[in-house]
């Protein structure tokens, strides 16, 4: 299925990627090629086949429901582009 530029704009918005208008058309072409290629999967008979959820058969461990980490805001914030006190700083999100 070919993707049109409106679809590409919508997907870019969902993916939080700014795509300049001039790039929409070429990107639509590239993505359409890839989607067209993966669509061959439709020909595989998967009636009654369960979707894979775990590639290795194993029973995960349960851990004790206790606090076992944390309490070091300075380390959490060490790589923040912008921080104030013990908080990440972001552009204003409410009026």
């Amino acid at each position, binding site marked *: 299925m070919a*993707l049109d530029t409106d*679809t*590409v704009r919508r*997907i*870019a918005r*969902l*993916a*939080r*990627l*700014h*795509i300049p208008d001039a790039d929409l058309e070429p*990107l639509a072409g*590239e*993505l359409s*090629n*890839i*989607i067209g*290629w*993966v669509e*061959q*999967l*439709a020909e*595989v008979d*998967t009636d009654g*086949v*369960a*979707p*894979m*959820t*775990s*590639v*290795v*058969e*194993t029973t*995960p*461990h349960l*851990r004790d429901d206790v606090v076992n980490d944390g309490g070091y805001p300075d*380390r*959490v914030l*060490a*790589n*923040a*582009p*912008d921080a104030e006190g013990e908080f*990440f700083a*972001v*552009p*204003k*999100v409410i009026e």
Partner: protein
Amino acid sequence: MAGTSDLTRLTIADAGAGLAAGDFSARELTQAHLDAMAAARDLNAYSAETPDQALAMADASDARRGQGDAQGPLDGIPLAIKDLFCTEGVLSTAGSHILDGFKPTYESTVTQQLWDAGAVMLGKTNMDEFAMGSANVTSHYGPCLNPWKAASGDAAGKDLVPGGSSGGSASAVAANIALGATGTDTGGSIRQPGSFCGIVGMKPTYGRCSRWGIIAFASSLDQAGPLTRTVRDGALMLGAMAGYDPKDSTSVDIPVPDYAAALTGDIRGLRVGIPAEYRMDGTPPEIEALWQQGRDWLRDAGAEIVDISLPHTKYALPTYYIVAPAEASSNLARYDGVRYGLRVEGEDIIDTYEKTRAAGFGPEVKRRIMIGTYVLSAGYYDAYYLQAQRVRTRIADDFRAAWDKCDVILTPTAPSAAFAIGEKMDDPIAMYLNDIFTVPASMAGLPAISVPAGLSADGLPLGLHLIGPAFAEETMLRAADVLETAAEFEGRQ
């Protein structure tokens, strides 16, 4: 003390023996590698060198050994670390602009286990951005070069790709500027560069190594593994890297065997499966011939060659290109310019996210985020993502049926030798086809290894690929060791 260049040409096993015998110190071994790294910077194999840390770790190793407290076969062994592993206080970028300046405040489990085993970190290696690529050409830090050059043909004299995504790790090991390196493999990212650079690359079973602290690409596929110059070295490294980790709920809690002890050289009676579907149109005759040669080597060593069928092989790659981008689009949602790395200020918070991600991600990463977002979006999820996960079950079932007939599977690693930088750049699908032989084992979570087995007509390395059942690394390594012995592959230098 041996000469400096001799020290960089050792295997891990021989270097460990030399350290134990007192032939040289860990500091001398490490300094020889730091000198060789400085002389080989044109390869662009390292994105960050950590000489001070390396020498401090080497001195600590020498001190341990002096007190009779050496930790085992990796104590004092200098290694390179793929830049996908978070290393405490050391730049960790995944080859991406969006992780500019990121210095983790924690250490990945796999690298911590290597340091606990006494290994020495030389630096971080170049890679395709977020491990998305098969040629190391999508790195923000520029392409990494393969130390090999073609002697003839179209690529003669040109700079060649090392493969990818673990291109820097493979190049470093092949160029003798690390005794071994960590890689990660999502669809072939250890094995294909191993093949291109003429070294051994092993992807263990999914769950064998902890993924904690490895920057995530596709969580149901990502797995750490070693790149080394010999099968035995790979066995030694895997022994330290593997193991259950409470911090990764998908890591599996079964004992880690002594992998090197599995290399007995005896494969009499081993059943080696040859999948009919891996004979593909367009595979160069020299790769078909090498595959046949591999069969002959294993048969001569006493193995039984068995024809098998993996009917859904041709669907593995398109399945991968739904599942991996879907998981990537989710995993890479965290790069928003708020908590780490690059931030490009916008008019509001949404604009900041969008501009940060537009500036921080390269074209291939954006392409995969877009594909992943699309196949997960309302109205398309069932047709693409759910169908891909069903086909993935089919692929895994193919292998399950094959294990009734054989103990390991032999295939080529890649459909070509290394190609020139710049090739296959205009056509994403042509680049994706590099992984056509490696992706099926990834989709089924199985262990697989590439062993250098011969040279192309143009004088470039070609690998053979062994796949084993889940957690049958020992059987797979035993066969790989026999293949390696029979091939008598001469390294680059």
